[in-house]
């Protein structure tokens, strides 16, 4: 085309392309997740390792099968299936029976992503679709927690991990421990902030260490692979909502710092809410979206039977993000603001 300089080359927008491909972003997200996964294996031993390997493998295999069945080019190269699997493992309890985790992985990739048309078309975060399915299908196993740093965690599996497919676990471990959220809600025992921050508490495989998650998130934000507005608004809104309740009745409600550091709020805000496909693209929209998620998380935690509200809050946020986008369109330079239409 450049052979004849006099020919006017016509192209449709976008004219300026960013340097990042889907592959670059996804592989960086994966690198950022690896330290968290490694720490989880350190805390919970080979059961966590087996869980991470299972979900990742099942997600990748499902993705390749789906591509084959629908006769599409294999999309394994964009790492999105591997990240789905990795994140799903990090949001499940470490002693989760492996076959249940595998069922969740299949639902993640098939229902959460492939049925919508693949990466970029999905309305909901695939990880959370799989997780919500597991929560609905196996409510007991998904809320049985194990204490971290148990002895012999590198030599033997937890009692529940190697359950025969379709059967229920033989017995839950004697070392089952309540998460900080459960302790706070049912026994009014508040876990120390230092412990919460470092992550030596019971909880989902990858949600415990806030320090590490924040560090890895900071790397992604610094390299602009995730937009800082979403984690910032989610955490800020959760903090403020919680502060209002705490100010009203400090006896009954947890402190805002506890709200931030306990449970999966930080993991969700950085790695799940900020998913590019399922979150708004306008700057104002991101603030609204994050604010909504933070607010809903606190409300669900405080006033429902659920201990953790991050999953449903983000799914609800995903559901309204197209509306948020269309209501928060920025003004086109030189144009007068028209009334927003749904």
């Amino acid at each position, binding site marked *: 085309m450049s052979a004849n300089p006099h020919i006017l080359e016509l192209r449709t927008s976008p004219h300026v392309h960013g340097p990042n491909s889907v592959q670059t972003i996804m592989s960086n997200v994966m690198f950022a997740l690896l330290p968290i996964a490694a720490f989880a294996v350190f805390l919970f031993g080979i059961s966590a390792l087996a869980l991470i390997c299972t979900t990742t493998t099942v997600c990748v295999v499902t993705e390749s099968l789906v591509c084959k069945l629908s006769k599409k080019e294999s999309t394994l190269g964009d790492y999105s299936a591997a990240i789905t699997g990795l994140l799903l493992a990090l949001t499940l309890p470490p002693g989760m*029976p492996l076959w*249940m985790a595998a069922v969740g992985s299949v639902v993640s990739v098939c*229902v959460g992503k492939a*049925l919508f048309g693949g990466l970029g078309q999905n309305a909901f975060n695939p990880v959370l679709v799989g997780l919500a*399915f597991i929560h*609905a*299908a*196996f*409510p007991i*196993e998904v809320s049985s927690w194990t204490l971290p740093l148990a002895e012999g965690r590198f030599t033997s599996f937890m009692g529940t991990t190697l*359950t025969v497919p*379709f*059967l*229920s*676990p*033989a017995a839950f471990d004697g070392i089952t421990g309540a998460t900080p959220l459960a302790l706070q809600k049912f026994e009014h025992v508040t876990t120390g902030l230092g412990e919460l921050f470092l992550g030596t508490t019971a909880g989902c495989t990858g949600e415990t260490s806030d320090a590490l998650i924040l560090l890895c998130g900071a790397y992604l934000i610094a390299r602009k692979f995730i937009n800082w507005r979403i984690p910032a608004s989610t955490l800020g809104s959760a903090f403020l909502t919680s502060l209002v309740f705490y100010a009203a009745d400090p006896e009954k409600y947890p402190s805002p710092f506890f709200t931030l550091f306990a449970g999966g709020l930080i993991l969700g805000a950085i790695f799940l809410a900020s998913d590019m496909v399922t979150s708004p693209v306008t700057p104002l929209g991101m603030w609204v979206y994050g604010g909504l998620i933070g607010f809903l998380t606190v409300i669900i935690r405080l006033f429902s039977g659920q201990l953790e509200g991050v999953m449903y809050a983000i799914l609800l946020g995903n559901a309204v993000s197209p509306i948020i986008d269309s209501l928060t369109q920025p003004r086109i330079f030189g144009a007068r603001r028209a009334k927003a239409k749904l």
Partner: protein
Amino acid sequence: MSTVTNTAAAPYSLATLLNGMWKENPGLVIALGMCPTLAVTNSFVNALTMGLATLFVLVVSSAVVSLLRSFVPTQVHLVTHLVIIATLVTIVDIAIGAISPQVYRALGVFIQLIVVNCIILGHAQGYASKSTVYRSALNASGTGLGFTLALLCLGGVREVLGTGEFMGAPLFGERFEPWAVMALPPGGFFVLGGWLLAISWWKRRTGKKSAGVEQKQAA
């Protein structure tokens, strides 16, 4: 509308029956009557009862509506049809209560809600009031059997996964882990979606194959 207007010229035989059961299956192909399809299919027996109850109401109401078609003035069409259907539903309601109080309790209000099942009213309004008793009863049987089949497809899968049993008989031994979600309403949506996917996929495949054969024959 009191005379027999021309209906679609389809063969009135086994083909009609099969058409309602498979090609125009109300539950799995044209997605009608979704309320009972999703609500009462948490076990095979519930699905079967619901399917048979609907089949009975559908066939008998079609026949009665067809019988009365020359006596009912247009102005009171809808009301007459509803009275006929409601009478039959009341019969079914009392009968199921007498035969099996357990199933009656499980199905609850959904038996009475057969009155507002769109398949039945659609049949009465759109088909039975315009054609002969035999034709409308045959067509209704096909649709009713198809609906029963759809309910059984859902009920079977949901009972096996949701409780590990099939018609009350355990399949996987004592320690089966029930998938709680399958017995709950979301399970209905998941399984229905799965069946719709499977059927449309199968149809597309066979459609392509037969199209390929026709092309070959043409060439």
